[in-house]
């Protein structure tokens, strides 16, 4: 039996969906994108072109929910289906698009440069707990205008795992697609074995901005998976109640699925989000608040009830250093996500809301993720009888360390932590330098980076990726891309 966690009764789910559908008709959804408005109008939705508002009837939404796939895979660069969107699969990737990196020496945030993100990608490759990469950090050493595609370019050079990404502009999406197709071996190959998924964010309340709507349509048309990141901020841009925020989330996601499926029936799209229970004192969007976790858990249940693959931003912290708050918030969110059965949980490494990435937090989070995955693997009898024969054999002897049963099962039953987690005796811990979690994490980062194995990507392909990126960067006045760090 798999442990899970249920927040909503069936009746409450039905009511949330009914109210979400109600919102799509009245007041409708603001759609600041001409192509989407045309698609909706052509499908029979009443559209007010001047006000850019679409009123989306239930039949359209229901049809879209039917045609949207309930599951699909992302592939690694060796062509293996390693990430499963659908059912109760639970997988993890780092939080995306941090503006800064937490400097390992000073423990201060600073703008990241090429080297920082490359090290981050390498770390993610070496951490088995992480199932996918993400374009986690923006590099400040290239023009802002190509910040989104440059991250993807860098990651592609060092990764094998699939990647969660996103575009910040309409035009850069095309370059990103070109990079992905180059790596996948062509347009059809990318469709057959997608290696990336694009985050697309509706704007609360009930708005599709031109940019992200276009990104979603372009993804759909090319059958590149997209992931809705709807973010009701409860009490600021959404009702303050958890259930109310989920109603808004439901409406925004249903509008997204509808536009996506009108652009291309059957295009893969994920029911996801990054909501927050708005902090009423600081005016911030806490990711470590229990209210935030409740919204995530609840909308995941709604998505599953509608047969959609799911995603959530969880496992982050609002702390500014890797301290106790950092650990408790990251662990809480990660465990909730795992128990809720979120297909892709984005957030590892991320702190200070969604602003900063940290290598040290990433390796600590990997331990948390390992524990969460173990937790949902649940309790397995392993043998039948479970222990009767074994215990009768041993009688009253405490000799289990010497038993084949122990050898057979210990590494399945237990999560064997890395040196990040301290379980030494007090003296043993002192002998090893009495290191804090932060220091142990730093050691682990260095150790993992030293063990990173370069990918087998050919020099030709690397050159091709560079040429594509270089060309895009030149449009914004960058002469030469920063050199790629050694693999």
């Amino acid at each position, binding site marked *: 039996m798999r442990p899970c966690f249920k927040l909503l009764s069936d009746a409450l789910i039905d009511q949330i969906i009914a109210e979400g559908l109600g919102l799509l008709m009245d007041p409708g959804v603001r759609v600041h994108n001409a192509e989407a408005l045309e698609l909706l109008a052509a499908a029979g939705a009443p559209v007010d072109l001047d006000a850019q508002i679409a009123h989306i009837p239930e039949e359209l939404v229901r049809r879209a929910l039917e045609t949207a796939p309930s599951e699909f895979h992302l592939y690694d660069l060796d062509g293996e289906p390693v990430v499963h969107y659908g059912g109760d699969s639970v997988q993890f990737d780092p939080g995306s698009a941090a*503006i800064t990196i937490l400097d390992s020496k000073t423990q201060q945030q600073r703008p990241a440069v090429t080297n920082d993100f490359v090290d981050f990608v390498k770390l993610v490759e070496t951490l088995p707990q992480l199932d996918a990469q993400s374009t986690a950090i*923006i590099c*400040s050493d290239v023009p*802002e*205008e190509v*910040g*989104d595609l440059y991250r993807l370019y860098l990651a592609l050079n060092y990764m094998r795992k699939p990647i969660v990404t996103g575009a*910040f*502009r309409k035009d850069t999406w095309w370059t990103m697609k070109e990079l992905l197709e180059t790596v996948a071996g062509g347009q059809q190959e990318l469709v057959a074995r997608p290696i990336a998924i694009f985050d697309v964010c509706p*704007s609360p309340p009930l*708005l599709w*901005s031109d940019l992200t709507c276009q990104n979603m349509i372009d993804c759909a048309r090319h059958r590149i998976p997209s992931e809705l990141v709807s973010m009701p*901020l409860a*009490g*600021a*841009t959404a009702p303050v109640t958890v259930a109310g925020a989920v109603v808004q989330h439901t409406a925004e996601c249903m509008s997204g699925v509808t536009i996506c499926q009108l652009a291309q029936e059957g295009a893969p799209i994920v029911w996801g989000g990054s909501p927050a229970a*708005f902090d*009423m*004192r*600081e*005016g911030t969007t806490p990711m470590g608040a229990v209210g935030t976790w409740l919204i995530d858990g609840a909308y995941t249940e709604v998505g599953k009830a509608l047969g959609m693959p799911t995603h959530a931003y969880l496992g982050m912290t609002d702390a500014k250093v890797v301290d106790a708050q950092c650990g408790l918030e990251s662990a809480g969110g990660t465990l909730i996500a795992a128990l809720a059965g979120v297909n892709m949980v984005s957030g590892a490494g991320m702190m200070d809301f969604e*602003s900063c990435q940290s290598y040290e937090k990433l390796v600590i989070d990997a331990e948390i993720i390992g524990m969460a995955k173990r937790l949902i693997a649940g309790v397995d009898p392993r043998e039948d009888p479970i222990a009767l024969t074994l215990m009768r054999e041993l009688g009253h002897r405490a000799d289990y360390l010497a038993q084949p049963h122990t050898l057979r099962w210990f590494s399945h039953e237990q999560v064997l932590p890395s040196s990040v987690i301290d379980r030494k005796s007090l003296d043993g811990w002192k002998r090893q330098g009495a290191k804090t979690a932060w220091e142990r994490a730093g050691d682990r980062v260095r150790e993992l980076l030293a063990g990173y194995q370069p990918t087998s990507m050919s020099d030709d392909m690397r050159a091709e990726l560079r040429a594509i990126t270089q060309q895009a960067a030149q449009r914004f006045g960058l002469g030469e891309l920063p050199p790629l760090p050694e693999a």
Partner: protein
Amino acid sequence: MSNTLLPEITDALVACDAASAVALTQQALASGLEPLTIIKQGLVPGIEQVGERFQAGEYFLPQMVIAAKAMQQAMAVLEPELQARQQRVDSAGVVVIGTVKGDIHEIGKSLVATMMSASGFQVHDLGVDVPSQVFVHKVRETNADLVGLSALLTTTMTAQREVLRALEESGIRDRVRVILGGAPVTPEWADSIGADGYADDAVGAVQLSKRLLG
């Protein structure tokens, strides 16, 4: 009776009761109190108390925002009377604020706008995704003292520079102070593009503006 009306207006604001604040303001006018007296002895002490309670951690943003709105509604009642008397409230300054072109992040900018108007600034909020020229026009139209530019994306920070250029090219850069804010913005960035200052949060934005205009 008029003696109790003024403290009642204060109390209505502190209780975040917009309907009463407006009704009491109307009563106060009808009872012959001067609009400036109503403002200085009724409304301003109220909003100040709300601000103090917020600073003390006793009040939260909903109280702050609702009290600020209540104050605006009460001011709207008094505005025609002030005009009729050719009087003006001493404003801390005229502010034009918005989120720059290409950027639709709204919440931080709106919080800053609310705090500024609660602190006595006359605020013109242009919303989000605001083209440079719209800032320029509004500054001209309102004779603004200060422009606030919010940007939440590394890709749209550059638009802050464009607004500064546009103000420069229109020859009105010298007439206004320009402050910046938003998650990726840093004091160094503000310096490097020639803005007058940077604020980390809404309270900081108010303090900075008061310092710049004081």
